[in-house]
């Protein structure tokens, strides 16, 4: 279980999140929505221990382990994974090299090359991407859609138990969006991870069927509900759905 308790985060002396609380139980799908600049992406970066974000108060635990005492590698090794809206392009480093290095390290022995390749080929087929992706440089010279599929390939190899998706739908055409959403659904059905999804895209939620939807405004969750809350937001926008802080406090 992920538990974020009274978290306050600053960047360059500007408070981005304030007394932020969130609990995600095993296998639950949570969605975070909110206007631009509300602090949604900050949460994903803070969980992954991006040190550009200064935590001034609060705690983040995952399965009772203090994530704030960990570095990014250690968080990832707790089986927490982030797919961001603009995945990095790293020229000269192939997907296979990177994934094999991670698996070798985790298993403390070299991965069986044949088995590793066979698994990657299967994953490519599942994601409907060419096998050449395996030996392409990480996200380098890929279209927006290709990058997201490439990140899904990493996901299926690394098999995280908590998946954070930060606007994975951005820049996708309708076919790519369907493929990404259905692949995520398949991953969920196979592995039952917890998910934290940041999105503005109805199609993704229609397929993934979240358990909880939260609305973030000015660094705080101002409203929570089920999937119907997302539907209301898609229909009427944030203005109509977000209760004022006073309403919440009352």
């Amino acid at each position, binding site marked *: 279980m992920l538990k974020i308790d009274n978290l306050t985060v600053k960047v360059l002396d500007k408070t981005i999140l304030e007394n932020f609380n969130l609990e995600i139980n095993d296998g639950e799908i949570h969605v975070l929505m909110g206007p631009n600049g509300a602090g949604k992406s900050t949460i994903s970066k803070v969980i*992954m221990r991006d040190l550009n974000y200064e935590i001034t108060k609060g705690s983040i635990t995952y399965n009772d382990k203090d994530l704030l005492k960990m*570095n*990014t*590698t250690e968080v*990832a090794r707790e089986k927490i994974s*982030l797919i961001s809206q603009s*995945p990095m392009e*790293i020229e000269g480093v192939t997907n296979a090299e990177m994934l094999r290095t991670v698996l070798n390290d985790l298993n403390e022995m070299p991965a069986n090359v044949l088995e590793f390749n066979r698994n990657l080929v299967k994953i490519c087929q599942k994601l409907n991407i060419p096998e050449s992706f395996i030996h392409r440089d990480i996200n380098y010279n890929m279209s927006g859609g290709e990058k997201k599929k490439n990140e899904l390939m990493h996901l299926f190899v*690394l098999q995280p138990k908590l998946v954070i998706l930060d606007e994975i739908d951005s820049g996708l055409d309708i076919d790519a969006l369907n493929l990404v959403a259905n692949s995520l659904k398949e991953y969920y059905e196979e592995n039952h991870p917890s998910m934290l999804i940041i999105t503005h895209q109805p199609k993704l939620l229609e397929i993934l069927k979240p358990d909880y939807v939260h609305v973030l405004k000015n660094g705080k969750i101002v409203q929570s509900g089920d999937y119907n809350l997302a539907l209301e937001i898609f229909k009427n926008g944030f203005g109509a759905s977000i209760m004022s802080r006073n309403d919440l406090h009352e």
Partner: protein
Amino acid sequence: MNKIVLEQDEYKFQDEKKEIWITTPKINIDICNEVYLKITKIPANLTLNLQLEANSRLQIDMELDFDNNQNTFNFISGENSYLEFNLATVFHNENSLVINNQVNVNNSITNIHFRGIEDGGKIKVLAVGKIYPETKDNKYLEDIRVMTKDNSLVTIMPDLLVESNLVEANHNAVISPVNQDYMFYLRSKGLTYDKALELIKKGFLNSILKK
């Protein structure tokens, strides 16, 4: 790929693909037709003069450690020739590298790529591209990048001497530390700090050698 050792002063390559070791401090090479050279060993004070004949194509890949190296590469383009020079190095101690290019023909393409990773050393890179008057339709690129650690001393002097209006000449020089966004990304996949750094460095050098 055949490996040969170059010990004499003069060589001519024609339609060949070779791995070469250079053992002489000064060498002149003529290039004819299509040639690929992978240079895997050079002396610390090498001067390499290389002339491309008309209509020739040459790619040189070099991945070498520099340790107190003082190397000079002089290239002369031929009419309709294509030159791709890719040099990737990890450097230690004090080094200097001079790359001179003379383009006194028409319709040639020259791409110079240098990637250096500082490992407790200094380097001074001077790249000079001279495009002569009354030449036309030439394309020329100098792309020089060095990845540094703390307190590095790196000097890059890209120098374009263009005396023709009918040329597309570019240069770029980048001196920067390891990209921390890359580090975050790779570590968020589960790589340790050291393994992430190793892959980034390897990728930085590979980015020109794999073309």
